[in-house]
């Protein structure tokens, strides 16, 4: 099955030469495998697969909580998904978020990991600080960000405004406009809202990627750097190109997969701050599901989005895997 080999590759099966996967079928362990996987399988089916199946079924109905039954409406919900501009914007918002947050948080995570790895001191301190956002409750943090990004009172615009009059407005168009007409509304301006949400997403996620990269870096053989040095790779960039980046390939595949899945699942910030607005510019899929199914009690519609959502994530993961796989070396 496609999904199976999908992750099989992201996992470097440490197949040291001839010593292959020697999982065992010895005497007297015939059924152990089934006993051990059974609880997990049952729970997976009951807790994850069954609800998905229910959702898939419901997506063809107009079920609404509190009603006695539901009518079979066929593909009507899916038709709406294709037809209504709201859902076009939903796809846009989601795509924007994923396409911005995934590369940016990975690049920043990698950058931070490399820097932290190369400085002599305070590495642990930076690491802890950068990991803070991962640990904080996103809900609380969303509230704080909303606060900090208040158009006039927030610490961000306040700090920006302090720079006015220093001549910076002559240099930067952004400042020129901001100093004259006020700095952006961030969450209230549909030109900024999704980017601001992206920013929070990056802020929250990159520390996680950093930790993964730090872990990846520890397993890059030091020999290789020395070999590169002997080969004449004198510059940091050459060594990065020749050794670090390729050796981090498997880590990157893992990071990309996890970050993509997580970005698709962005929800807390949108729910807490923008509720999908303004003008549906931050109407990401998870929020759409929530809004339809839970807030508006249109469970059929919510289920339809859920199904589409799962389809998207799966397609993307598979596609990404096929694109990336050929370029990645698994040690």
């Amino acid at each position, binding site marked *: 099955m496609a999904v199976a080999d999908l992750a099989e590759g992201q996992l470097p099966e440490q197949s040291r030469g001839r010593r292959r996967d020697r999982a065992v079928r010895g005497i007297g362990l015939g059924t152990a495998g089934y006993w051990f996987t059974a609880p997990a399988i049952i729970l997976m089916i009951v807790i994850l697969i069954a609800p998905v199946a229910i959702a898939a079924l419901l997506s063809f109905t107009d079920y609404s909580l509190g009603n006695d039954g539901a009518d079979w409406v066929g593909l009507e919900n899916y038709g709406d998904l294709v037809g209504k501009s709201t859902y076009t914007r939903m796809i846009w918002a989601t795509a924007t978020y994923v396409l911005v947050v995934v590369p940016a948080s990975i690049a920043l995570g990698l950058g931070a990991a490399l820097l932290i790895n190369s400085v002599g001191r305070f590495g642990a301190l930076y690491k802890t600080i950068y990991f803070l956002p991962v640990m904080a409750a996103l809900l609380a943090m969303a509230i704080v960000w909303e606060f900090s990004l208040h158009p006039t009172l927030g610490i961000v615009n306040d700090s920006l405004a302090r720079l006015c009059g220093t001549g910076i407005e002559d240099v930067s168009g952004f400042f020129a406009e901001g100093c004259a007409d006020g700095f952006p509304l961030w969450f209230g301006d549909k030109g900024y809202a999704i980017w601001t949400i992206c920013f929070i997403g990056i802020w929250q996620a990159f520390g996680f990627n950093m930790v993964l990269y730090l872990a990846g870096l520890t397993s890059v*053989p030091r020999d290789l750097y*020395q070999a590169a*040095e*002997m080969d004449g790779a*004198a510059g940091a960039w*050459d060594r990065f190109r020749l050794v670090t980046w*390729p050796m981090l390939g498997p880590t990157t595949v893992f990071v990309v997969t996890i970050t993509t899945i997580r970005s698709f699942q962005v929800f807390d910030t949108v729910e807490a701050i923008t509720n999908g607005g303004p003008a549906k510019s931050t109407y990401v899929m998870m929020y759409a599901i929530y809004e339809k199914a839970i807030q508006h009690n249109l469970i059929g519609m919510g289920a339809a989005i859920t199904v589409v959502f799962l389809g998207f994530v799966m397609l993307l993961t598979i596609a990404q895997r096929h694109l990336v796989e050929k370029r990645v070396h698994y040690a």
Partner: protein
Amino acid sequence: MAQIGLNGITKSFGDTIVLQGIDLQIADGEFLTLVGPSGCGKSTLLRIIAGLEAQSGGDVTIGDRQVNRLRPSRRDLAMVFQSYALYPHLSVQQNMETPLRLRDLGFWERAPLLGALLPGRGAKLDRLRANVREVAQVLEIEHLLARKPGQLSGGQRQRVALGRAMVRKPVAFLMDEPLSNLDAALRVHMRAELAQLHRALGTTFVYVTHDQAEALTMSDRMAVMMDGVILQLGAPSEIYRDPQHRKVAEFVGSPRINILEAETDSAGRVAAHGVQLQRRAAGCGARVSLGIRPEHLSLACERDNEGWPFTPTHKENLGADFFLHGHVNGGSTRLVARATPEQAIAISLGQEVRVRPDPGAAMLFGADDRRIRFLEA
């Protein structure tokens, strides 16, 4: 001109002194081996030559240039690592090209897309590819050029690592236990190949190993290191035959040299476990050690009272030879003697025989472990 000179090299990591003043002149085209037990500082010394590690004191010269502050990539040396350190994501071809690209192409020419647009790049690439092919031919790895290191066997990887070192035509090759990851049979084979390669290239080789067999078989000269100093430097046969230090004698040779406690009497006559040697040594009344290699012990089968009474407890069959392990005089002093298969079969375990040293083969070491010469008769 590629002599390498080490003058008073010292190195310490924090408080631990690893090298305590190494002086060594390596001639152009020489195959020099650094041997010594694990942890004696061989790798450290090699890495100092390469520039991968900075010495704490002393000078490194290559040719007649002092290179103390030169980056590794500028020293024009090539290094072969124990782990091969091949770039696992690059094909063999690309692995071998890398040092050439880094040397011959400019920064922009190496850039992924842009580089392809620069004029003159194609010609350079062709040249360096030809270069790689040539080396691959020499090493007989042409058919592997398209593979990745992961698809190669140990010996093939070894050769690719060599190839990557060779393409640059460096002034010297530095090798840090390049064979230790191979299995026994392949190791023996590669030993011969390396020696051959050295003869063919005529370049300086500095070779680190803790396996004395490698050192003995390949090198022009070998330096035996212990605890950060070079105990003896010389041709392998000289070191085997004529060790200047008990530790050298013990380190070189397998099975280990037999060491027997002995005394010199006032006349300088040496006696060990009741047997007196023919030759005499200077000095008197001192406790000394007598070293005799297993192949220099002969069985004196007839009970003619010559040599030591020896009770073999274990026969070690190596196919071509047997080693007899046993005790001297029924005591606790262990002794190993070499015997032919025919001799060995005739002897049964636990049955006392006599062994005597071949004339002139025994060596004498003082209490300070230094060699004591016998007086010429």
